[in-house]
């Protein structure tokens, strides 16, 4: 168990100082650190690795003290036996793949180094790359090399800072499977930073959300990320619509409450939450959770049907972002096929259909 209770303040130019203030424990197995950029995720990993020194607090791994401000204990990175895969990977460009992997094994005999390199290279499918240099291998292979270099040292904690960014989904899944296999055998705490929702679901044991240097929530990925409770997290978790709202009334019998959006021009129903009537809240809705209808829909279970006008239509790869003004401004994600069959165009009258449970109350 890795226990952390640290605080570190950073001076910023003019603005209020950024404060990292984290109190958390990490059991063996995967924990996903999720949060918007600038939330302090990499800084937290740097503190755990000993690359940055917190102002106060403690870091323990089981009985061993890595850092204790009150007792003036600070173990250097060299003495923590932690493996860290950086976002940039930081492979040594002047060393071959084999020497990159061997770099952390300097204390072992050459025979033992060879044995371990061979074993890890086989496990991560890079045995054929050992004599190449980092510039000579592909992006996915680089990521495998970086993981192998980190894991070959048999670390007691593994820190992964977005190690799979930029890879396509199938490659990412394959590497994650290798990692899962490795994790099942070793049972050490693995902290995995990402802001990719798919990766969270693929790793999926436990997620800890970080925003503005503080832990927001912790739990199973679905529970934490499908109903984010802060605006920053809602945005990071892919909620395109975060709208200001005012609670109008509670309807406990139906399990809902009515809120007015933005400047009170439209009203919707959202699940009953911890907000008194009259209070100002925010409502987060995914762009993909909103339906569009070209005629006023009838006989639907969805409780929120709002008329509006299409402001703009923008194609983004395989999805189309439709901006609709319906009192409040909504971003709706549809497929190119839907745009064609509904013959959507700017200025057109349109109805938005939103299920009550697609609306999430955030702070």
């Amino acid at each position, binding site marked *: 168990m890795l226990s952390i209770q640290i605080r570190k303040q950073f001076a910023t130019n003019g603005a209020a100082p950024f404060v990292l203030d984290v109190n958390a424990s990490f059991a063996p197995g995967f924990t996903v650190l999720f949060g918007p950029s600038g939330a302090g995720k990499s800084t937290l990993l*740097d503190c755990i*690795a*000993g*690359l940055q020194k917190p102002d106060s607090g403690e870091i323990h791994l089981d009985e061993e003290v890595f850092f204790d401000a009150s007792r003036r204990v600070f173990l*250097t*990175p*060299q003495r923590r*036996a*932690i*493996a*860290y895969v*950086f976002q*940039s990977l*930081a*492979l*040594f*460009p*002047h060393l071959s793949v084999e020497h990159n992997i061997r*770099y*952390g094994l*300097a*204390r072992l005999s050459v025979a033992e180094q060879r044995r371990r390199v061979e074993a890890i290279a086989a496990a991560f499918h890079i045995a054929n790359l050992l004599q190449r240099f980092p510039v000579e291998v592909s992006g996915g292979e680089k990521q495998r090399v970086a993981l192998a*270099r980190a894991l070959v*040292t048999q670390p007691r904690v593994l820190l992964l800072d977005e190690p799979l960014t930029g890879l396509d989904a199938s490659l990412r899944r394959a590497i994650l499977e290798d990692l899962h296999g490795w994790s099942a055998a070793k049972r050490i705490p693995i902290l995995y930073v990402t802001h990719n929702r798919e990766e969270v679901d693929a790793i999926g044991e436990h997620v800890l959300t970080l925003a503005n240097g503080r832990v927001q929530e912790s739990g199973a990925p679905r529970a934490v990320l499908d109903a984010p409770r802060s605006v920053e997290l809602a945005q990071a978790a892919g909620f395109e619509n975060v709208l200001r709202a005012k609670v109008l009334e509670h309807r406990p019998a139906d399990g809902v409450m009515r809120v007015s959006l933005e400047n009170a021009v439209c009203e919707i129903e959202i699940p009953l939450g911890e907000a008194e009537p009259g209070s100002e809240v925010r409502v987060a809705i995914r762009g993909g959770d909103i339906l569009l209808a070209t005629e006023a829909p009838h006989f639907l279970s969805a409780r929120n049907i709002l008329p509006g006008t299409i402001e703009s239509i923008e194609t983004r790869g395989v999805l189309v972002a439709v901006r609709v003004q319906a009192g409040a401004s909504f971003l709706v994600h549809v497929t190119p096929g839907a745009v064609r069959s509904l013959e959507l165009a700017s200025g057109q009258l349109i109805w938005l259909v939103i299920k009550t449970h697609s609306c999430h109350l955030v702070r």
Partner: protein
Amino acid sequence: MNADPLLLSLRLSATVSLLLQVMALPLAYALAFTRWRGKFLLESVIALPLVLPPTVLGFYSLLAMGPRGPLGKLWQALFGHPLAFTFAGLIVASLVYSLPFAVQPVVASFESLDRRLLDASAVLGAGRMRTFFRVILPLAWPGVLTALVLSFAHTLGEFGVVLMVGGNLPGITRTVSIDIYDRVQSLDYAGAQQTALLLLLICFVVLSTVYGVNRRVWSPWPAR
């Protein structure tokens, strides 16, 4: 043409540029990788020879190396003979004179290294020495080569400092630039021409080698 002054200059330049590398690496490390309050003072001191007239530098070197100067007294006590107007004296003065040319390119190349590589080295268990020799130095070698060649070329071309602390003793302190000056003074234009042309060619070859290897040679102190 008398080859002695040229050979003397080459010997001086080679000795100085090699000694300077030994001094420059730890200095550059301190400037690039550590943070402390008085760092700008060290930067200024190292850069001073860039802006000081060589005669000023030579004058203070002469005072320090003279029989009543601290360096001169120390030298006399250690080796039993004076330091001023000797080859060793020339070396000492040239070390100061060419120091910025040895330090600045190395600092620039150290600072352009990806810090995450150093972090990776530390996390993988390597101490500072191992990180320096296995990661920093191999990746910063263009800067080190630039420093070596620039300090060599700069020492080869020095005049004012040599004149002040070395005088003009054939075979001991009579460097190629002094030799050219002497020949012009005595109206031996043909002799001056030969030596000057040779020096011009050497300097051109040296500099084109550096520029060919590394484009950012004359970088000032990098912004932080």
